[in-house]
């Protein structure tokens, strides 16, 4: 998902936790209590959450770029407004999520610097290019659709501020998903060229969308601990399967073909079985070698660098205002 890169080598805990506190903490989690910022929590829980929430925030923010690529070319005024509003929503998600991460004792600036320095991860999906208008439909339908699969359970995640941010975000993501599907529907009911555009976009986005759920459970190092702490409630493979089951009929309704010759319906289980995911591609993109990794980070760095004087000016002005207020107060005394 937006936090798919979590299964990196587990950092060794720097602190040895008090077993009694740990047991009490686990008991609260088991009782479905929410953990709040001022509550005691194990260091590893805090670190996992910071990493997960900040990766999620970075994904929202980097995700503005591929869609932003079509803002100036949206084919109707209605689509232009909807796309702009959607990208604005994603920026808003970034803001809530950075705020949620800040409750864990890190600053947004620090997290953002890590992103710009290439030290933090974001979802691999945003390293793919948006080549035609149909890609905007596919992103809404598949990428926001996959996001929802992952994020609905996160509305019940054990950390209170994260869970509450997710509730707000999920409402908007499902709106984005419907909007994306509607773009696809319009294309598929349009001219043969438009339908071909839709199929081509699905061909390019299908597999990367499946990769959004992260590596298979057999290789996912963090899953077990995260499940115990109820940071996560379903495994990567469970969520991926839910997504496939929900999405295949939607593709059929559009009259599009899923680019997977091995895809078949399993009568016994009621699941759609899909072919092998190219995990080498996934690892490569996560490691920085996807089609747009370099451009995405460059665009964010450029904006940050070019905006430096603006942020400095805002700080300088605020400092002057404080000094003036102080001087006035002194003069009045």
């Amino acid at each position, binding site marked *: 998902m937006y936090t798919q890169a979590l299964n990196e080598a587990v950092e060794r805990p720097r602190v040895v936790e008090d077993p009694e506190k740990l047991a009490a903490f686990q008991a609260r989690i088991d009782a479905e209590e929410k953990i709040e910022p001022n509550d005691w929590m194990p260091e590893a829980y805090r670190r996992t959450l910071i990493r997960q929430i900040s990766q999620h925030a970075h994904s929202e*923010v980097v995700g*503005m*770029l591929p869609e*932003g690529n079509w*803002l*100036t*070319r949206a*084919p*109707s*005024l*209605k*689509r*232009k*407004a909807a796309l*702009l*509003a959607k*990208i*604005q929503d994603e*920026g*808003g998600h*970034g*803001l809530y999520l*950075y705020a949620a991460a800040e409750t864990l004792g890190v600053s947004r600036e620090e997290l953002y610097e890590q992103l710009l320095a290439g030290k933090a991860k974001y979802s691999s999906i945003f390293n793919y290019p948006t080549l035609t*208008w149909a890609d905007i439909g596919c992103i809404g339908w598949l990428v926001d659709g996959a996001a929802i699969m992952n994020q609905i359970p996160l509305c019940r995640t054990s950390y209170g501020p994260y869970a509450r941010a997710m509730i707000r975000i999920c409402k908007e993501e499902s709106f984005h998903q419907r909007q994306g599907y509607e*773009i696809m529907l*319009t*294309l598929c009911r*349009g*001219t043969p*060229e*438009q339908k071909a555009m839709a199929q081509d976009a699905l061909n390019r986005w299908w597999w990367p969308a499946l990769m959004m759920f992260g590596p298979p459970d057999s290789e996912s190092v963090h899953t077990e601990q995260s499940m115990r702490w109820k940071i996560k409630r379903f495994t990567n493979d469970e969520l991926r399967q839910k997504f496939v089951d929900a999405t295949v009929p939607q593709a059929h309704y559009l009259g599009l073909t899923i680019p997977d010759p091995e895809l078949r319906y399993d009568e016994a289980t009621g699941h759609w079985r899909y072919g092998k995911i190219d995990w080498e591609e996934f690892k490569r993109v996560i490691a920085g070698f996807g089609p747009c990794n370099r451009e995405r980070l460059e*665009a964010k760095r*450029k*904006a*940050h660098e*070019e*905006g*430096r*004087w*603006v*942020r*400095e*000016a*805002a700080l*300088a*002005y605020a400092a*002057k205002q404080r000094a003036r207020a102080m001087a006035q107060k002194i003069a009045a005394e």
Partner: protein
Amino acid sequence: MTTIHIEETPHLCAVLRLADTSLVLAHRLSEWCGHAPMLEEDLALANIALDLLGQARLLYQHAAELEGKGRTEDDFAYLRDAPQFRNYLIAELPRGDFAFTIVRQTLVSAFFHPFWQRAAGSRDATLAAIAAKAEKEVAYHLRHCGAWLVRLGDGTEESHRRTLAALDALWPYTGELFEVDAVGRAMIDAGVLPDPETIRPVFEATVDRLLREATLPKPPATWMHSGGLRGVHTEHLGHMLAVMQHLQRAYPGAVW
């Protein structure tokens, strides 16, 4: 679809001037999305762009009604070429740096806030309703961008220098906002649109106050650009439309 040809009555032309200005400015603002100096400004500039886009759509729909030929908002936006666009030149200039965008948006809002206030009393009831909505939106744009203008002007040496440069570059485009040609005169006489001369004192007062707070000098009276209202644009508009209209032009008649 090939380029459409509009027979402009003064009323239709006047509405298209407003619609085109909102659309072109919204487009320029949307270019910031994802590239602003901070995430909050990505959102704020997108917000302003969305308001302007909303105004443009209502105005084009109104234009379609006035013309009475069954055209849509998109026909006006996507199927006219640059010489048929009627926007003020100030709207089409490239986004520039953040200072340029802020100065432009402040100047345009300082004009349009009192403009829409007065247009809310228009004899054209549709236009009056659009104006009443736009007035509230532009009041916010003016507050937001005016506050930035002050921060940038009275911030650091660099921000002061950049803001001053933007002001120098943009000021010669403000004269056009007050131009009254035959179309403008007809609309004033018919009680459809306000006389810009009645707006000038409010505009001047707003600009003077903000520049004073921003510690920026008022630009001296100078030669003013003109042409947008009659379709004589800068070199920038054609490029903007080439991008904006690309899909509609590449796949004529397709529905999106």
